[in-house]
């Protein structure tokens, strides 16, 4: 497996290289150049305009610019944003990436679990109204127009029922009154609390993984019970910890704002996973080892879960990997609907403001994010398929 991971990493790096080059091509090919916003003002004397261009290196040959592009990228210097002057682009991105990641990861995980569980059950009942009905429902969710759906959700749950907030990621009034020593302004306070939330989540996940590894030797049934207890315990501990701290209500505010976007992305995404799972389960049904499992006297539920599903997991995971860009796209669109201040919204507002450095930087990072997610998913796949793990 080590070789596989290395090979895949090399491929991904190469792809990253190509992507960055593509971005550069777009940058060079676009009408005008980086200085559009600055220098299109007719009051700027042409001499100054020419001088600025030369100072920025825009008169240099393309290859030199290309080299400089790479040099800057490696150093992490992505320029300074126009619309949020004088914030460096890297800082803006660094602030916003965690928010996109949270949304993306949580939504991906939830929609996968839900879709897989449903698809697994659906595959076991073939034909009849049930199969067709569930196909239709799945397709409906899959093709629903995301912005429209998101807006409907806001309308129903936010405006009409008033259960959940209408958008953004925190409630400014609540936060301006909150006191966190050393921090001013709801922006930085928000980042602090958000960071803490992520830390908790990360720790919980790591502890959970440790638990899974520790219980490997246990017999199946006992292991299942232990894991369920452990997961519940972790969740309760995390909640209690937060409730007892003084930033508890702030944390809850953020979580509350997260619910609707996550639910939206989940609902839009799970249809696809469900349909793919069902399809691969059906293909798995014809395999010989399913017959062996039945012959051994295993009840249908175990045949389905331990044998069919475990094998169907692999192609479904592949399908998920292929669908990662779509999930990311869906996340970007959702961010714009809910004004969730992540990479997607940043990209859109920067584009509208013609803030070229920020646009390029954001696009760059979205690419890195996508490729990183790909690599992670590929490694996970290699781990789950014993044919690759032990080859």
């Amino acid at each position, binding site marked *: 497996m080590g070789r596989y991971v290395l090979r895949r990493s090399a*491929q991904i790096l*190469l*792809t990253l290289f*190509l*992507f960055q080059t*593509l971005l550069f091509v*777009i940058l060079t090919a*676009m*009408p005008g150049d980086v200085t559009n916003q600055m220098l299109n003002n007719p009051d700027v004397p042409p001499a100054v305009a020419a001088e600025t261009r030369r100072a920025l290196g825009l008169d240099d040959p393309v290859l030199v610019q290309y080299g400089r592009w790479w040099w800057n990228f490696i150093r992490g210097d992505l320029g300074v944003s126009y619309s949020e002057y004088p914030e460096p682009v890297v800082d803006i991105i660094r602030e916003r990436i965690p928010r996109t990641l949270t949304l993306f990861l949580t939504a991906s995980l939830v929609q996968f679990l839900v879709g897989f569980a449903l698809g697994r059950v659906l595959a076991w009942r*073939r*034909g009849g109204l049930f199969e*067709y009905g569930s*196909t*239709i429902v799945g*397709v*409906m969710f*899959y*093709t*629903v*127009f*995301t*912005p*429209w*759906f998101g*807006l*409907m959700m*806001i*309308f129903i749950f936010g*405006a009409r029922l008033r259960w959940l907030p209408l958008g953004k990621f925190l409630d400014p009034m609540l936060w301006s009154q909150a006191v966190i020593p050393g921090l001013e302004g709801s922006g930085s306070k928000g980042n602090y609390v958000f960071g803490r939330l992520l830390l908790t989540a990360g720790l919980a996940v790591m502890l959970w993984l440790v638990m899974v590894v520790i219980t490997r030797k246990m017999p199946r049934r006992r292991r299942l019970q232990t894991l369920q207890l452990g997961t519940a315990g972790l969740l309760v501990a995390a909640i209690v910890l937060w409730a007892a701290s003084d930033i508890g209500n702030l944390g809850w505010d953020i979580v509350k704002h997260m619910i609707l976007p996550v639910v939206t992305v989940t609902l839009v995404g799970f249809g696809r996973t469900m*349909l793919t799972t069902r*399809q691969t389960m*059906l*293909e798995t049904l*014809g395999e010989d080892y399913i017959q062996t499992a039945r012959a051994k006297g295993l009840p249908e539920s175990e045949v389905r879960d331990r044998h069919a599903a475990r094998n169907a997991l692999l192609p479904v995971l592949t399908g998920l990997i*292929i669908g*990662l*860009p*779509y999930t*990311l*796209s869906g996340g*970007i*669109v959702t961010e*714009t609907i809910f004004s969730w201040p992540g990479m*997607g919204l940043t*990209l*859109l507002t920067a*584009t*509208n403001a*013609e803030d070229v450095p920020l*646009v390029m930087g954001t*696009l760059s990072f*979205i*690419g890195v994010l*996508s*490729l990183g997610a*790909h690599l992670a998913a590929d490694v996970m796949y290699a781990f789950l398929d014993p044919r690759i793990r032990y080859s």
Partner: protein
Amino acid sequence: MNATTGSLTQSHPALWRIRLRLAWKSLRSGWALYSENPVGLVGLALIAAFGLMALIHPILMATVWHPPIYDPLIGYDREIIVHPSPPTWVPNAAEEITSLSPLPPFRHILGTDPLGRDVLSQLMFSTRSEFALGIMAALVTVLIATTVGAVSAYFGGLVDAILMRIADVMFMLPFIAILIVLSSLFDFQMVHLALVYGLLAGFGGNTMVIKSQALTVKVKAYIEAARVAGGSDLHIIFTHLVPNLLPLSFLFMMVTVTNAIFSEAVLSFLGLLNIRMSWGIMIQITQAAGYLLISWKYWYLMFPAGIAISLLCSAFYLVGRAMDEVVNPRLRKR
């Protein structure tokens, strides 16, 4: 079939005629399988319904609908004072609509939008361009994916490596992000969007799947035979390899149409396209004018376009799924 079993010196019908006959036969048996699945038929029915909508619109405009009122872009109903106004057949409409004189119930079946234009007319008018967009994007995708996949599988080696890396780039990146940037930099109309989308999608994941299919065809005996008989590479690729990939390509066409229509709607909604009228634009106008999240009474503004997008996308997807059962025999019930 004495033609094919006759001796070599006998004349037999042209190769293309035999091919046509075989193609027709496989089409018929494919259709028999396809039509067993109601899901596929539902999809086709929906597509037909939308097609009808697209075709009827110009007829309606030429006959029953008075252009100054019903034109989807510049129509304006002067008889109604306040726009947007609800559909005229709704029972309590008379109270809602402030008009100069009582209106017949089918005047505005889906009401009018904030700019005074008939909603149904807009819906039907956009259908045409949605179809055009979807099909164009799909054709471009299929063209690129099939060719690149076949070439890549056939030549292998360096050609394959390069093409696959390019495919990787396209495949791993979220389209929307790239489209957002591109559409803001360049002036995008429907055609441009179709081409760019076709390019991105064609080079992406589709290529890889078609390539792996091409690989299984490449090792078949008749390819060897063709090579031995002296066929040039190009000839082999296009006469032997590609026809076997067509069913799979056709399947991808369906999915591409779905995604292309969807992407266009999103971009229109975000206001990034230079298009005058589409379903996405309809939603965008509703939102920009502030009518989207106010109350259920503006349902005729909130639902038609969104549902149309969903239905047309689902239709193509369902057709694709049903086709999958025909093309992929492992899924068939006995």
